């Protein structure tokens, strides 16, 4: 395993600048001056098998800014454990210097200032450069995609995921699993799986509801470096609950721990010397699965968008977390001998887009995919004075802006915006383009509804979503963040059971407590109900931003969090 000391020897002498904020000296040190592509790709090839993991790209073909969460609370056994570590604690845990490249890549502090220096991250053309470099060292490196690939951008929405399918085929992905893929609808998913995809679409936990039989291939066997490898897929377990089940009515998901144990036994019986789980469970679910199911060597985790610079070892299983939005690629070199895993070497490769050169072929493909939409994508709608970001358990400025737009444009008392974890960030002073708006909203059930709800109903919704996040048993968590609320404040005690976490719900415009029996006008979007009506959220947001010209978002202090 790569040691912390050797991680980023090229990191800047930023320690002298600790305490600087805003646009301090270190923000001017560009990543280009401090880092080279060789630094980022440097890796002594070892063992006989190489895995490459990318996940939760959310259709981001081009480099983006993406601010990691400030608030990411763990509960139960996960309290204070990775990945529920942020900011200074994260730096201390992994030996990262404040202001260093990895600090910018992996934490939230001074994000806007560091972003000016280090630039955007990701881009599938840069990812292609990394993959080609790894394959130059190890031609049969196994490239795996953890899913949430076909959704999250304007072009993926307009092409029904075709741009991403073409790009991932060109990248040479060899297996994937899924989550948001199914929000394209079952017919489109099956069309892609059967006719478009050059590699298997795996999901051991996807069953048809009628006969309770497996609906997709559970695993694929590979032989690399003389080693028999089983790659098992695990789709997002709560697909029909967290996303609209009516879009794929005949499928059932679930964690299905016993099924996973059976599949592991099956692939071992078939001679697998290395068992890799390509998972979209979310980190805490995978941690529990690793503890309860023996015989999995590696879990390539996804869904919760965590990026960890070191593997976590649980019950003999290495958990690898590779971030999101094409910001990172994990390389794992393995020595598999005598039927078992002997050693592992891992590197979370940050894709600094100003440092890693775009691969010309992939860049050309991406340009071609985007060309028909170039004018729509680049149209400037307005400007932001505030940093716009989404990640965090309770609120982010992107959703604060969306809630403001819903309240103003839809004349509501209260606005709700779902706790999605995808969505790129925008720096203060930056223009907001249509592409930026779609990067925060592009999905297939965007109707911005306006309805009346009682205070009691609002409380029920908040309690329900809070339990998806803070149930102490990970198998009852769904891996999103808390629903974002505009126009209403509340207090949450995350240590309490469902039904008693949320108190002090307050209507902000009057300062009065929410009355359980009174009816309020509520606007929101992304309802999983089939008959939801309203304009698409991107139109609401575009109108709002156009009307204001320049938007700014005040710091949000309306959620009081206790019991952490």
């Amino acid at each position, binding site marked *: 395993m790569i040691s912390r000391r050797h991680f980023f020897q090229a990191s800047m002498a930023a320690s002298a600048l600790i305490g600087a904020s805003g646009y301090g000296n270190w923000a001017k040190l560009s990543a280009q001056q401090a880092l080279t592509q060789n630094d980022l790709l440097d890796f002594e090839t070892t063992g006989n098998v190489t895995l490459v993991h990318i996940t939760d790209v959310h259709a981001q073909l081009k480099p983006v800014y993406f601010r990691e969460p400030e608030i990411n609370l763990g509960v139960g056994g996960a309290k204070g454990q990775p990945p529920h570590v942020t900011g200074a604690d994260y730096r201390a845990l992994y030996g990262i210097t404040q202001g260093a490249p990895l600090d910018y890549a992996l934490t939230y502090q001074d994000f806007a200032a560091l972003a000016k220096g280090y630039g955007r991250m990701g881009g599938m053309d840069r990812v292609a450069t990394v993959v080609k470099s790894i394959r130059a060292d190890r031609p049969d490196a196994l490239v795996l995609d953890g899913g949430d690939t076909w959704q999250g951008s304007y072009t993926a929405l307009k092409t029904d995921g075709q741009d991403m399918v073409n790009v991932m085929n060109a990248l040479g992905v060899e297996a994937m699993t899924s989550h948001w893929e199914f929000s394209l609808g079952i017919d489109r998913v099956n069309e892609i799986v059967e006719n478009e995809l050059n590699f298997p679409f795996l999901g051991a936990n996807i069953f048809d509801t009628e006969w*309770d039989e497996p609906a997709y291939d559970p695993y694929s066997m590979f032989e690399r470096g003389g080693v028999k490898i089983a790659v098992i897929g695990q789709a997002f377990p*709560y697909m029909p*609950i*967290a996303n609209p089940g009516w879009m794929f009515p005949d499928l059932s998901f679930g964690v299905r721990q016993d099924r996973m144990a059976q599949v592991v036994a099956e692939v071992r019986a078939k001679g697998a010397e290395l068992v890799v789980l390509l998972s979209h469970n979310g980190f805490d679910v995978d941690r529990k699965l690793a503890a309860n199911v023996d015989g999995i060597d590696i879990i390539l985790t996804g869904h919760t968008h965590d990026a960890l610079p070191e593997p976590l070892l649980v019950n003999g299983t290495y958990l690898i977390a590779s971030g999101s939005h094409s910001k990172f690629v994990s390389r794992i070199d393995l020595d598999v001998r005598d039927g078992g895993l002997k050693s592992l070497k891992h590197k979370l490769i940050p894709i600094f887009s100003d440092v890693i050169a775009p691969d010309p072929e992939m860049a050309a493909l991406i340009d071609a995919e985007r060309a028909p939409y170039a004018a729509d994508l680049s149209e400037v709608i307005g400007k932001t004075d505030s940093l716009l970001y989404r990640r965090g358990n309770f609120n982010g400025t992107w959703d604060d802006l969306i809630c403001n737009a819903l309240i103003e444009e839809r004349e509501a008392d209260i606005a709700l915006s779902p706790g999605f974890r*995808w969505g790129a960030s925008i720096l203060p002073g930056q223009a907001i383009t249509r592409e930026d708006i779609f990067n925060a909203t592009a999905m297939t059930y965007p109707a911005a509804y306006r309805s009346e709800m009682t205070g009691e109903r609002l409380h029920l919704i908040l309690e329900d979503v809070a339990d998806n996040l803070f149930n102490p048993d990970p*198998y*009852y968590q769904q891996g*999103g*963040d808390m629903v974002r609320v505009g126009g209403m404040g509340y207090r949450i005690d995350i240590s309490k059971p469902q039904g008693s976490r949320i108190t002090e719900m307050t209507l902000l415009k009057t300062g009065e407590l929410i009355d359980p029996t009174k009816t309020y006008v509520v606007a929101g979007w992304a309802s*999983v109900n089939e008959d939801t009506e309203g304009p698409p959220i991107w139109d609401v947001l575009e109108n709002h931003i156009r009307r204001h010209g320049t938007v700014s978002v005040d710091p949000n202090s309306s959620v009081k969090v206790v019991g952490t």
Partner: protein
Amino acid sequence: MQFTRRDALIMSLGAAAASVLPVQAFAAASAEEILAEFTGGAAVGEGGLTLTAPEIAENGNTVPIAVDAPGAVSVMILATKNPSPLVVTFNFGPMAGSQSASTRIRLAGTQDVVAVAKMSDGSFVQASQAVKVTIGGCGG
């Protein structure tokens, strides 16, 4: 929400015979009372009975469950917080190839689903699992 017999689609395996007693007979009976009647007050142990149910129901109106209890003569399923907690009792005759069964049940809300097996030696074991019924979330 009212539980009715029609909502339990009995798909028992092997030679299991399922009996769903009239709802009215148990309208006032709690899960504890039904359990006590089934066991005759005998102590209930654990182990030897596997209950499979989803952690979170995809549709609370039709939740797939399965039981497997080698050596059982009957297995009773209780939905502890349904208006009528007794869902079904599977009886396994001596010719049954296996003592396993599956069905779909309706759950009125988040609750523990309990399976209680009467073994051939007259002893009882139980297994339970919390099944969450949500109003639809924001996973992402």
